[in-house]
């Protein structure tokens, strides 16, 4: 018997992965999955899990890393949801054809209007038919147990397919429930290490799986994959029964039937909403109604057999969906159930309820109403309304404050108190004015300034910020407006140096004439302080935590000025919110260069972040000033290849003055501090020598 604790679903999944002794964990943060990979970082940093941890630059790469690792024979785990899962999409298809038995947790989040973080199944919908095992859990305990079961199912020779564990964002991922942690010895006995049958390691075997199949044989291989998914049903049942014997918890097989024995009708659900549906069934049963509940635990392979049995016993089926297949009129599970039962003789009518989209709560009352509706259908044999949307009223949003205001950004924002990004944004827009289009890859700014910006701010897909900007620029140019409307990005470091780098590089190379402003708080702040490649060496972040084994981020930060200089763009500058005249001058110069159509102007502004660097918020400007005065953040300009160091203190202050104000560096040893001091000194000399060089030779 293991120990009990109260924990969020994300922590339960992380424990599951730890107990499964996963060997390679590529990660990328996205709400509401992020803490799964943060807990795993903590486990590894404290020596509780011996695994390779890879902070990927984006989800497409993240799943690529997972497939690579699994092909080489490692037991692999990763997690994502929503936009991140969509970004992985083409690799999801590859994982199936390579037969890599990796497990991916998806803390479901809507793939609808971009900036919604509430749960529904629109994110798993486009992935569900690509050949992965698809499971849905109802509780945090089931999430932990399912993580272990999925490895045993996936790695079984009869299966050898990747598996997705779907758990509702927020309702499970961030809600605390009582969970029992099995003992490691018991898990080790039940789940032995992964023995890959065909690892691509030439020192281990001499066969490896291939994706190259002649055209004539594709239909055959598709049939074979379907047979494998069919075969996996037996494996799922076996593993479930074996788990129940070993650990004392059984969940049924592909479906769980609740009070279906003498039911006239059933509701079909999946995921955490099942719990409320159970209570509604109890209430209806107490009132004498004969209704039951079917919980879909696995949607792929689809439980045709179980559904056919149930259909033979009832007079109506009501499927509750948290996903809409746009263009078909109804939801995902509804379409699956209806088509599964279509060819049965005398099948019951099937109706659909679409509810809880975007995380809207589905109450027990809502389920009771759905139940009554299905019972009515059972009674009359008639479908009044095939698809019903369970909608709720929303409270009105907060009223904006009307006032005379000539600046492009209204006062107030949703940013943290003392937010440096707000200081930067107000000065940027003061220079550019409201006849500006602002392209904003996901970051804190998206939350903060949309409601107060007179200039349109457009949320661009994370890896495509500069691509969106290019499209806007070319349309403006075609319409003769390129010199009448300013075009800038306002992007965090994530959207610039990591996931956004490819599209910035491409835009720079093509010579697109727009401004790129990066406000650099040196981590992925909006998802809760995970490292970026702009995080300074040795800093604590939640994906480079300080523990027994790890001592913060081991790598130096990326040098974006030189990367952009390698593209030979006309204007590059670093800036600081503590040096406002210099900052505004650089924004003005960028505006001039781009309005003249000369190419990309890139400005990289440091943004001290009280929330993520852990200093008191009144010191935002003070910390920024120290960064410049110690040489931690040199203020430089590269105009047509000519390097200029703008602010040259007679003597750089010791780096310790800057570091000691920030608790993200509080663990630093004397040795680490002197290493950082050496690095700062070296970089400073480097800038001075580049300044003396005259023009950079490759311009």
């Amino acid at each position, binding site marked *: 018997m293991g120990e009990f604790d109260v924990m969020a679903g994300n922590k339960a999944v992380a424990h599951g992965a730890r107990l499964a002794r996963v060997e390679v964990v590529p990660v990328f943060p996205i709400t509401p999955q992020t803490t799964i990979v943060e807990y795993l970082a903590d486990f590894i940093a404290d020596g509780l899990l011996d695994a390779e941890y890879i902070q990927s630059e984006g989800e497409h790469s993240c799943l690529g890393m997972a497939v690579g690792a699994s092909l080489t024979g490692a037991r692999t785990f990763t997690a994502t949801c929503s936009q991140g899962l969509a970004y992985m999409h083409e690799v999801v298809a590859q994982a199936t054809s390579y037969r890599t038995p990796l497990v991916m947790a998806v803390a479901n989040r809507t793939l609808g209007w971009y900036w919604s973080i509430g749960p529904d199944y629109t994110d798993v919908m486009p992935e569900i038919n690509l050949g992965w095992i698809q499971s849905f859990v109802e509780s945090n305990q089931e999430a932990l147990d399912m993580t272990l079961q999925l490895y045993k199912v996936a790695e079984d020779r009869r299966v050898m397919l990747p598996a997705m564990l779907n758990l509702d964002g927020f309702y499970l991922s961030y809600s605390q429930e009582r969970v029992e942690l099995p003992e490691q010895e018991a898990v080790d006995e039940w789940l032995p290490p992964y023995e890959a049958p065909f690892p691509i390691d030439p020192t281990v075997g001499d066969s490896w799986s291939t994706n190259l199949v002649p055209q004539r044989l594709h239909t055959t291989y598709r049939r074979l994959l379907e047979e494998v998914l069919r075969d996996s049903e037996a494996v799922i049942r076996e593993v479930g029964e074996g788990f129940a014997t070993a650990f004392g918890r059984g969940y049924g097989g592909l479906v769980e039937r609740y009070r279906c024995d003498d039911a006239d009708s059933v509701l079909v659900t999946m995921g955490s909403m099942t719990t409320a549906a159970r209570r509604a069934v109890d209430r209806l049963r107490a009132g004498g109604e004969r209704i039951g509940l079917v919980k879909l635990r696995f949607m792929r392979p689809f439980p045709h057999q179980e559904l056919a049995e149930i259909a033979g016993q009832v007079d109506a089926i009501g499927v509750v969906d948290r996903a809409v297949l746009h263009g078909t009129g109804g939801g995902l599970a509804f379409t699956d159930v209806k088509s599964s039962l279509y060819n049965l003789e005398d099948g019951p009518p099937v109706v659909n309820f679409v509810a809880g989209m975007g995380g809207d709560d589905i109450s027990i009352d809502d389920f009771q109403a759905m139940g009554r509706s299905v019972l009515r259908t059972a009674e009359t044999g008639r479908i009044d309304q095939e698809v019903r949307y369970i909608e709720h009223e929303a409270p009105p949003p907060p009223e904006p404050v009307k006032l005379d205001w000539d600046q492009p950004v209204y006062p*107030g924002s949703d940013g943290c*108190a*003392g937010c440096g990004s707000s200081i930067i944004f107000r000065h940027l827009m003061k220079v550019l004015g409201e006849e500006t289009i602002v392209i904003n890859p996901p970051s804190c700014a998206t939350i903060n300034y949309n409601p107060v910006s007179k200039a349109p701010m457009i949320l661009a897909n994370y890896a495509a910020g500069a691509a969106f900007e290019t499209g806007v620029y070319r349309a403006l140019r075609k319409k003769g407006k390129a010199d009448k409307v300013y075009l800038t990005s306002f992007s965090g470091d994530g959207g610039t140096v990591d996931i956004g780098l490819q599209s910035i590089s491409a835009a720079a190379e093509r010579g697109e004439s727009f401004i790129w402003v990066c406000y650099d708080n040196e981590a992925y702040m909006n998802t809760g302080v995970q490292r970026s490649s702009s995080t300074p060496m040795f800093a604590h972040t939640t994906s480079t935590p300080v523990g027994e084994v790890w001592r913060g981020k081991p790598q130096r930060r990326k040098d974006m000025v030189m990367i952009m200089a390698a593209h030979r763009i006309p204007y590059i500058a670093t800036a600081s919110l503590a040096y406002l005249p210099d900052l505004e001058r650089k924004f003005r110069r960028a505006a001039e260069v781009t309005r003249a159509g000369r190419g990309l102007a890139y400005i990289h502004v440091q943004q001290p972040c009280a929330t993520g660097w852990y200093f008191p918020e*009144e010191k935002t400007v003070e910390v920024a000033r120290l960064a410049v005065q110690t040489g931690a953040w040199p203020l430089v300009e590269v105009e047509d290849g000519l390097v200029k160091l703008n602010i040259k203190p007679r003597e750089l202050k010791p780096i310790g003055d800057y570091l000691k104000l920030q608790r993200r560096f509080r663990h630093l040893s004397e040795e680490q501090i002197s290493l950082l001091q050496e690095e700062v000194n070296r970089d400073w000399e480097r800038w001075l020598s580049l300044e003396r060089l005259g023009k950079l030779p490759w311009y």
Partner: protein
Amino acid sequence: MSGDETVKGVILLRRKDLGGRDVASWRVYKPVVDGEKCVKCGLCAGYCPEAAITMGEEGPVLDLRFCKGCGVCANECPAKAIAMEKEA
């Protein structure tokens, strides 16, 4: 956000519907300016993340509807003319 009669289901942000964001309820401390010490340098207005401070003829003008009490103004004031006082 609003809709449009001509395009069903579209979600729009209209410029005329925008305005300031009242965040007064966020703060615990509020800035108080000592007019005698103030040298009207304008740094407080330049640094305020929320533009709750603007420069008037007589000196800084505070619109406390937009002040979160972060204290950057007080920290940066070269004349030490701003004190952060606890809200009643």
